């Protein structure tokens, strides 16, 4: 595969990643958001595979495989399990209207692209549009976490945010060292498990969503 076509494919995957992110922001029901984030992780894994093929870097294959197994399959499965345990199908109104969130999202995307075009030479070190897309995904994940008042939505936002970082990290010319990537993924799994346990624990003790508790202030 020549460099030019890798460039294009990474760009295309970046666009699809942005699309899944928009779906996550717009999703009213939590399980749609979970499917969207799973699709997003799948795209990241594909990006890893493509870059691995292009660079001949064996580490990237491993990372792509782990991303596929953990972030595209295992974590969404855990989230769906929690959804079933909590038995929530109801839509929860976000803090600000979804349409307004989407408008903010557009601004974030445009800003990210503007920022990275203003950088110039960085584009040599990172393939294609991976930098602006990564920044946009990271910030949009935070946006989801800030505008949603349910624990599961916040977790989905967190994973989306981390997907953005992974995408950029994969596209750095050399790829990140394998051991670091594995460690990062392990941390993500552990954090997800701890969060899931907390969510279920609050649900069972005070029958409320943990993210909507707001007694501590001042």
């Amino acid at each position, binding site marked *: 595969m020549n460099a030019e076509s890798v460039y294009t494919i990474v760009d295309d995957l970046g666009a699809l990643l942005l699309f899944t992110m928009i779906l996550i922001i717009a999703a009213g029901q939590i399980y749609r958001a979970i499917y969207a984030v799973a699709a997003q992780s799948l795209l990241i894994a594909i990006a890893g595979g493509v870059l691995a093929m292009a660079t001949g870097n064996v580490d990237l294959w491993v990372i792509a495989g782990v991303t596929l197994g953990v972030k595209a399959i295992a974590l969404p499965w855990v989230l769906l399990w929690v959804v079933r345990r909590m038995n929530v199908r109801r839509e929860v109104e976000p803090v600000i209207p979804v349409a307004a969130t989407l408008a903010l999202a557009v601004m974030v995307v445009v800003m990210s692209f503007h*920022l990275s075009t203003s*950088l*110039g*030479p*960085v584009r*040599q*070190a*990172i393939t294609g549009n991976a930098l602006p897309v*990564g*920044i946009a995904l*990271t910030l949009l*994940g*935070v946006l989801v*976490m800030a505008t949603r008042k349910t*624990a599961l939505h*916040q977790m989905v936002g*967190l994973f989306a*945010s*981390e997907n*953005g*970082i992974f995408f*950029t*990290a994969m596209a*750095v*010319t*050399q790829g*990140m*060292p394998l*051991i*670091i990537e594995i*460690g*990062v993924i*392990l*941390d993500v799994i*552990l*954090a997800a498990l*701890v*969060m899931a346990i*907390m969510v279920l*624990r*609050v649900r069972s*003790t*005070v029958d*409320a969503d*943990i*993210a909507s*508790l*707001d*007694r*501590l202030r*001042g």
Partner: protein
Amino acid sequence: MAETLLWILPLVPTATALAMLTTRDRRILSAIDVGSSAVLVALTLALAREVEAGGPRSLGVLRVDDLGLVFLLLLVVLTLAVSIYTVGWLRQAVAVGNMNAGTLHFYFALVHAFVATMVVAVLADNLGVLWIAMEGTTITSAVLVGFHGHRYGLEAAWKYIIVTTIGISFGLFGTVLVYAAAAAVQGGAGAMSWSAIMQVAPALDPSIVRIGFIFVMIGYGTKAGLAPMHLWLPDAHSQAPTPVSALLSGVLIKCALLGIIRFQTIAAAACGAAFTEEVLLVFGLISIVVATPFILAQRDLKRLLGYHSVEHVGIVALGLGFGGTVGTYGALLHVVNHGITKALAFFAAGTAIARYGSRDMRAIRGLLAVAPIGATFLMLAALSLAGMPPFSIFVSEILVLRGGIGHAHWVAIGIFLAMVVVIFAGLLHHAGAMAFGRPSAAAGRESEAWTPLLAMLLLAAIMVLLGISIPASVDGLFRRATEVVVG
């Protein structure tokens, strides 16, 4: 020898954490706890001697230099103090039902896992390992923050894990960007190692490092409790079990500061010191200003101490932002001073809270009459936190100020002084009201447990010692650490 110590150090708390799971007897657990912490202190002192003699050592992804050593010493000393304090605290907490006797082994295991992640964070040379360890501290300590299991504890724990995990993702992004810049210059393997990056730092692409540093500043700044990313800090500090609060405030936020300092050195070399200093200055000033009104209006004793940590982290950032040898020296000294003093304050506050059964400062009255020694320590800690001579914080604050005067940051100095004076008055008002007066009816009359007092004595001794005169060996360590930062 030193290389061996490098891998043994993180191994000790890890092994201890596993050992904790094998027993449920409170006495045995406490004994292992204190013993392991003492071993950690001994090993660190040995390592410090090696480094003093032979300079920085590295082993794989781990590396110890004088800068890391400052933080490591703070970490192990506080761990030991916390272990000693926990003995008496736990007896009381189990007696009144604050802690479930059946889950103590989990508690101890988590504390030592938490310590292990912090040791790795301090010793990490590889920036990726640094990040992994920082995220590890979040996971272990989040469980500890919610360990009491009531709704407030879990709320605080959730806020803590969510806010810091968002923050720390920014940190990872910044790390990736710095790595991308370094990989472009020197290629593959060493591009994540701090010591390797430092050697090529001036050649890095400044624009990408600049963005990376801002990401890191927001990321690790969240973890360090810099305003406006401090939202988790007062909640977590107030809801966590007292020994954990002391570790969070005394060490954890300092580890995050170390992360910031590591990136600061890279960024300063790549894009000029003026840029990093400006960023640090702004965050430091915001933290100090934001914390002040909350300190004045606070009623919850542990929240008060939490907001106070925001202020002091702000002072450290300010010292780094003033830059130069004096400012940086002052900032590093302040890291240690604040860690020691804040742990002492949490210990004293924790025992007072246990005695009165309330964290509301309006309920705590006449502490001096019912618990004279504890009350004395509380007053000492409050005086020191407020910046009274002859305690250590006075010295480091003066040094930070001196650094600012040296670089003519008059506006920042003005704001800093005004806030410090206001906080001084507020803190002494709160502390005086608690210590003096007639004890309220709720006050328990039982005698004071001796292990918490021993822990407080240890910390108070260090606090006074560092305030009156800094020993030559400690001074040498700080000077060399300052050189690492300033270059």
